[in-house]
């Protein structure tokens, strides 16, 4: 038996719709269609009614469009007055509340939409478009502040806890003045960016972690002390039923400031 495709086209021959049933259902279908045709109201085809209905629809669309434009304009003014930058990243609106002293945002708008990137990932094209390059993540990062994000897409109907299969995930950093990212698979047969030794060290780092309580129940966060490398907050924010956005903030800054920064991304 072919282990990969054991059942190809087999069911077609093994399950037989009994002779005669097809014609019976066909007749029932004919009756239903005839019944529906009789019920159909002739006045719906009346020309003046059609025209007036079209006019009402157009008027409604105009009202909605004007409302939308006005709302957009107001939104822009609010952001402009606040003097901050707003980025929308796959359903999660990111608005840094703290003055971005340590964070220098790159040309983020050039980065292709996360979902589209996931669907039609083309490394060379993505690099060209966004001027990114893949960097090897290192656990020995000693820098003032680093933020990374990624999207983890789980198979449907499984929680992250239940899922034990391969996960493809994005990991994105803001380093210096550049955005950098990797697309990494956890499948056994895939090339791993982290060696076994590095993974072990990473696991040890996580052992001194503590949870940060959030009001937002769709987000969890863990604070880890990295010793001389500062502190790290790992956050998982559920953006829709099947996706989790993975944040990571590292920094050699005060623990409270780091937590405050993390909260500013999650709690509005």
């Amino acid at each position, binding site marked *: 038996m072919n282990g990969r495709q*054991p*059942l*190809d*086209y*087999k*069911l077609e021959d093994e*399950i037989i719709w*009994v002779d005669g049933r097809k014609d019976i*259902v*066909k007749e029932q279908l004919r009756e239903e269609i005839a019944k529906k045709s009789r019920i159909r109201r002739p006045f719906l085809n009346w020309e003046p009614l059609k025209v007036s209905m079209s006019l009402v629809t157009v008027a409604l669309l105009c009202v909605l469009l004007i409302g939308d434009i006005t709302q957009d304009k107001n939104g822009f003014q609010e952001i402009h007055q606040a003097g901050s930058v707003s980025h929308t990243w796959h359903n999660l609106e990111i608005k840094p509340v703290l003055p971005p002293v340590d964070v220098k945002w790159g040309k983020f708008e050039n980065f292709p939409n996360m979902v589209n990137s996931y669907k039609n990932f083309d490394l060379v094209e993505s690099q060209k478009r966004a001027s990114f390059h893949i960097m090897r993540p290192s656990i020995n990062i000693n820098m003032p502040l680093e933020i990374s994000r990624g999207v983890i897409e789980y198979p449907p109907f499984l929680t992250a806890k239940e899922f034990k299969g391969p996960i493809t995930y994005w990991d994105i950093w803001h380093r210096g003045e550049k955005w950098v990212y990797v697309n990494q698979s956890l499948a056994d047969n895939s090339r791993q960016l982290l060696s076994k030794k590095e993974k072990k060290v990473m696991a040890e780092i996580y052992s001194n972690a503590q949870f940060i309580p959030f009001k937002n129940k769709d987000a969890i966060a863990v604070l880890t002390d990295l010793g001389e490398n500062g502190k790290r907050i790992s956050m998982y924010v559920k953006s829709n039923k099947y996706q989790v956005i993975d944040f990571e903030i590292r920094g050699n800054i005060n623990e409270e400031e780091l937590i405050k920064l993390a909260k500013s991304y999650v709690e509005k």
Partner: protein
Amino acid sequence: MESIKDQQFFQWYEDFSGSLFKYIYTIVQEPQTAEDLMQETFLKVYEKYDSIHDIHKVKNFLFRAAHNTTMDFFRKESKIKKLVKALKKENGCHLSTEQIVEIKEDGRMILNALKRLKPTQREVFVLRKIKGFSIKETAEILDWTEAKVKTTLHRATKAIENFLLLEDEAIEWPSTVRL
């Protein structure tokens, strides 16, 4: 006399009803329900006839309509399941599996294996592996991303393989050795 629309529509019925019935049957596993849902699917397609622009994609359109109808059924089913079943028993119109479908031995094994899957896994497996739709077509029918189709199919295939391996083991080894 039949209109061109009706002629075309019933030609589709002739061409695809068998395949659609088997598809829905593998998902819902009840022959009477499968027939009802197939009929409902064709009625929906009849109503949407004017919106079918690409005649070469009718098969995909039909399977997409069948998928939507089946999913709607699952959503409603839990609420009215008991009532409908009770009514069917009372008025005696409930047909047995044998009166609607004949299932050969291999078919039973496949259906048993499919029962182990979640409805969505079952659906993606049937579309891809049994009906032979491509990844792209399956994604269009289910309105999923291709990545999601691949992942779900991978897990479904694994589950089926595990089940079939267990079945094989059960046949190869006497129960005393297994204990």
